[in-house]
C-alpha cells in the first residue's frame, strides 16, 4: 500500500513539475529562447507571494490574484526591454543574459530576504485530506494543485491552438519575417509569450511556497525539474510536458520509497533512461 501511495503522491507532485515546465516550454516553442533564470523566477514568485501574505494578511491562494499579474507584467517588460535585444541568429546571447538574470535574482533575494528557509501557510487547507478506499489518503491541497496544473495545461493548449493569440505565436515561431508582413509586431508577440510564461511561473512559485520551504538558492534545481519534464514529454507538446512532470514526480517518490537519499537521483535516472531510449522525448512535436 505504501507503494501505491508513493505513486499517487508522485502523480500529484508531477502536476507542480508540469507547472514549472509549461512556461519554459512555451517560451522555447515561440522564440527558441532557453530561459536559464526560469527557476529563479519561480522562487521570486514564491517570495512575492510571501511578502503579500505577510504584509496584507491574505491567504496564499488569494495572493495569487496579485502575484500572477505582477509576474506577467515583469515578463512583458523584461522581454521588451532586455530579452528582445538578445534574440537573433546566435543562440548564445539569450543564454548568457538569462544566466546573468539568474545570478542577479538569486543575489537580490538573498540580500532582501536572507538565506533562511521560508514557507507560506495555507491554514487548515494544508492538513485537510480525503480518505480513499484501501487505507489511502490524499491531501486536498496537492489534489487542488494537480487540478490547477491540468487546467493550466488545457488552457495553454487552447490558447496555443484555438485562439488568435496562439495563431500569432505559431506564425511568429514559424517565420518571423513573414509574420511581420501580416502586421504582427514580433517584439509585442514575444512580450505576450513571456508574460504568459511568467504568469504560469507566478502560479508555480506560490504553489511551491505553500508545498515546501524555499530559500533564494533553490531556483536552479526547479529549472532542472522543469527541463526534465519538458524533455521527457517531448519538445513542443504541452500534454507531453504534463506526462513528463508526472513521470518525474513518480520516479522521485518511488526512489524515496526505496531509500530517502534516492529521491532526486531516481528522477534524474528516469530522465536519462527516457533520453537514452527516446532522445527526442516521448511525444515530440518540434523537430
Amino acid at each position, binding site marked *: 500500500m505504501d507503494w501505491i501511495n508513493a505513486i499517487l503522491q508522485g502523480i500529484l507532485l508531477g502536476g507542480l513539475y508540469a507547472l514549472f515546465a509549461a512556461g519554459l516550454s512555451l517560451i522555447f516553442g515561440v522564440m527558441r529562447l532557453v530561459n536559464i533564470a526560469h527557476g529563479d523566477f519561480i522562487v521570486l514568485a514564491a517570495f512575492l507571494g510571501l511578502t503579500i501574505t505577510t504584509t496584507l494578511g491574505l491567504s496564499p491562494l488569494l495572493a495569487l490574484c496579485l502575484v500572477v499579474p505582477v509576474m506577467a507584467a515583469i515578463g512583458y517588460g523584461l522581454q521588451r526591454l532586455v530579452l528582445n535585444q538578445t534574440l537573433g541568429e546566435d543562440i548564445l546571447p539569450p543564454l548568457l543574459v538569462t544566466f546573468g538574470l539568474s545570478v542577479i535574482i538569486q543575489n537580490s533575494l538573498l540580500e532582501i530576504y536572507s538565506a533562511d528557509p521560508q514557507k507560506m501557510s495555507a491554514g487548515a487547507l494544508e492538513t485537510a485530506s480525503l480518505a480513499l478506499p484501501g487505507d489511502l489518503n490524499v491531501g486536498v491541497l496537492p489534489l487542488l494543485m494537480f487540478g490547477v496544473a491540468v487546467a493550466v495545461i488545457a488552457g495553454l493548449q487552447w490558447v496555443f491552438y484555438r485562439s488568435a493569440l496562439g*495563431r*500569432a505565436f505559431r506564425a511568429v515561431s*514559424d*517565420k518571423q519575417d513573414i*509574420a511581420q*508582413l*501580416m*502586421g504582427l*509586431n514580433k517584439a509585442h508577440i514575444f512580450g505576450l509569450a513571456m508574460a504568459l510564461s511568467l504568469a504560469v511561473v507566478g502560479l508555480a512559485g506560490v504553489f511551491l511556497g505553500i508545498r515546501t520551504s524555499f530559500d533564494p538558492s533553490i531556483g536552479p534545481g526547479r529549472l532542472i525539474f522543469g527541463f526534465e519534464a519538458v524533455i521527457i514529454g517531448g519538445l513542443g507538446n504541452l500534454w507531453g510536458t504534463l506526462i513528463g512532470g508526472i513521470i518525474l514526480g513518480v520516479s522521485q517518490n518511488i526512489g524515496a520509497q526505496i531509500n530517502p537519499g534516492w529521491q532526486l537521483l531516481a528522477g534524474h535516472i528516469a530522465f536519462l533512461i527516457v533520453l537514452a531510449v527516446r532522445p527526442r522525448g516521448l511525444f515530440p512535436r518540434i523537430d
Partner: protein
Amino acid sequence: MPDALLSTRALVAHYGDFQALFGVSIDVQPEEVVAIIGANGAGKTTFMRSITGLIRNRPEMVVWKGQAIGGLRADQVAHLGIAMVPEGRQLFQSLSVEENLIIGGQMGRKGPWSLKTVQDLFPILKERRHVPATALSGGQQQMVAIGRALMANPEILLFDEISLGLAPIVIKSIYEALPAIIGEGMSAIIVEQDIAKAVSVSDRVYCLQEGRISLQGRPDELTREAISAAYFGV
C-alpha cells in the same frame, strides 16, 4: 508625378555586406500594375524587402501617399495597406490552410476580401481548409500565399517571383486569375524573371540590372531587343 501611391526615391539598400541597390527610383500610380523584371541577383527581392520594411531604410527613400515610410517596421508598413506574396510562398507550416488565410486578415482592414471571397476565388482552399498549409501542392500553396495577402485588403499587392518553382500549367492559371485579383481597385508590383508573363499583365515595366534601373516604359513602347539588352546588360 506628385500623386503616386507608392514611390521609391534613390533607394539604396544592402543585402548583408553586399550593396544590392544603387539609387532605385520608381513610381506606382493608384490602380496601376507595375512589373519589375531582372535577372537573378539584380536586386529585385532586396527591393521588395525594402518597400515592405523587412529591410529598414532612410525614411524618405520609400514614400507612401506623400508620407516617408522607409524607416518603419514591416508590421507598421503592413498596417498601411501594403501586402506581399513572398518568394517561395513562405506559408506558416504550423498553421492550417484556413489559419494561414485568417492570419493574413488579422489587422482587420476593411475591403472586399474576406475568408469567404478568397475561398470563392480558390475553392480548393475551402475544401482543404483543415490541412496543414505545407501539405498542399506547390500551386495550391501559391493560392494560399495570394489569398493570405488578399485577406489584408491591401491597397497595393507585391508579388515576388510568383511563378518560381511552379509547373507551367499552374503559372498559366495563376496569371489568368491575376486580373480578378488585382481588379478591385488595387495596385500591384510584380517581380518576375519570366519577362513575357510580367509584361503581359502590367501597365508599366521597370528593368533592374545590378541594382540600377536599366530600362523603363509602357509594354508597347519597349522592343524585345531593348528589354534583352536591359535585362542581360549585353
